[in-house]
């Protein structure tokens, strides 16, 4: 058995979709090339951009940081990072520490923002409330608000997230199955909000399968936080993911074809289905909001914080 690229006998990966065999060096190079190709094809970066990486310390965000750092080393962009500490005991601190070490290693500006400091409550405390709406609902909304604020404070022109191929395909299928055409218009490699205060978001890893990102960090010996969130539960996303992975066993190209198909219809979807939102301000925090209160503040009001 030999590497299809260089002939090395130490093969570490077999690509099911193409039958390609790769040694460690050729595998690492293939991942980096793929992400760089996405950046170029989708025009995710402009020279002089300051990119804020949403850095949890997990495999996807650490890989995003590593790949974008190659653009920083070529003086194309500047890089900074933010880590959100949701306040989850025995889980989040490891990721925060790993994120800090990566930022120090690369010498980039890094900020850790905690839910407790910003909103006066931790996710653990929210989950002790009897009528909570589920951990992911709060976590998603608070994290998005914190990252957007950090982008403005740090002068970032783009926010990079670690969404991989599996995440994107799950998002496409979930929204399609739920008939959520508005959310369907918001997916993609680059998402721009109607409100100027929301920084453009980019996803350099969206064409790389989750498993390949996991192998990349192990092969490159990058320190990452491999662990499961204690609040992870049987969500709709989990169910959809299971179905897609089952299909992918017999049809190894199915995730790519789902993504390609979505990319082809996205333009029409946006034109026909995108909703126009009112451009207002949240009365409580001043963040952009279509309603009197932004989503984060409406949750805080409900929680009595």
């Amino acid at each position, binding site marked *: *058995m030999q590497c299809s690229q260089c002939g090395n006998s130490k093969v570490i*990966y077999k690509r099911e979709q193409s039958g390609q065999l790769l040694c460690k060096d050729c595998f690492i190079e293939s991942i980096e090339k793929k992400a760089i190709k996405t950046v170029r094809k989708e025009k995710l970066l402009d020279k002089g951009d300051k990119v804020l990486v949403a850095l949890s310390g997990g*495999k996807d965000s650490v890989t995003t940081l590593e790949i974008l750092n190659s653009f920083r080393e070529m003086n194309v962009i500047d890089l900074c990072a933010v880590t959100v500490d949701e306040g989850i005991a025995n889980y989040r601190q490891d990721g925060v520490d790993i994120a800090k070490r990566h930022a120090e290693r690369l010498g980039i500006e890094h900020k850790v923002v905690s839910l407790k400091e910003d909103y006066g409550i931790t996710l653990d405390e929210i989950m002790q409330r009897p009528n909570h709406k589920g951990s992911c609902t709060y976590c998603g909304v608070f994290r998005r608000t914190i990252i957007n604020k950090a982008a403005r404070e740090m002068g970032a022109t783009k926010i990079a997230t670690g969404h991989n191929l599996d995440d994107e395909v799950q998002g496409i299928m979930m929204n399609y199955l739920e008939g959520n055409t508005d959310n369907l218009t918001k997916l993609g490699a680059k998402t721009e909000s109607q409100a100027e205060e929301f920084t453009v978001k980019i996803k350099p890893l969206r064409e790389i399968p989750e498993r390949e990102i996991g192998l990349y960090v192990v092969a490159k010996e990058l320190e990452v936080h491999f662990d499961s969130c204690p609040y992870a539960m049987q969500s709709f996303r989990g169910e959809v993911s299971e179905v897609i992975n089952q299909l992918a066993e017999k049809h190894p190209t199915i995730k790519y074809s789902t993504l390609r198909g979505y990319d082809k219809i996205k333009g029409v979807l946006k034109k026909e289905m995108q909703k126009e939102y009112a451009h207002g301000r949240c009365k409580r925090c001043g963040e952009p909001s279509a309603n009197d209160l932004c989503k984060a503040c409406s949750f805080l009001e409900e929680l009595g914080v």
Partner: protein
Amino acid sequence: MEFTLKFKDLNEKREIPNDDYTIKDLLNELELSAQTVVSKQNGELVIEDTVIQEDDEIQLVQIIYGG
């Protein structure tokens, strides 16, 4: 004939049941999906078709979790 398995907190000697016993066979026994773990044989990354040899140290690293 034995090999050592390292997985999370596990560090144990296991029997090699037959000559063509691969990492994929081991994953099936442990009910682990090859999609969620990567495998190392004596410290080096390998594919799941690799045959386990006597005295090998097989380390499994879980890279994908449910949530």
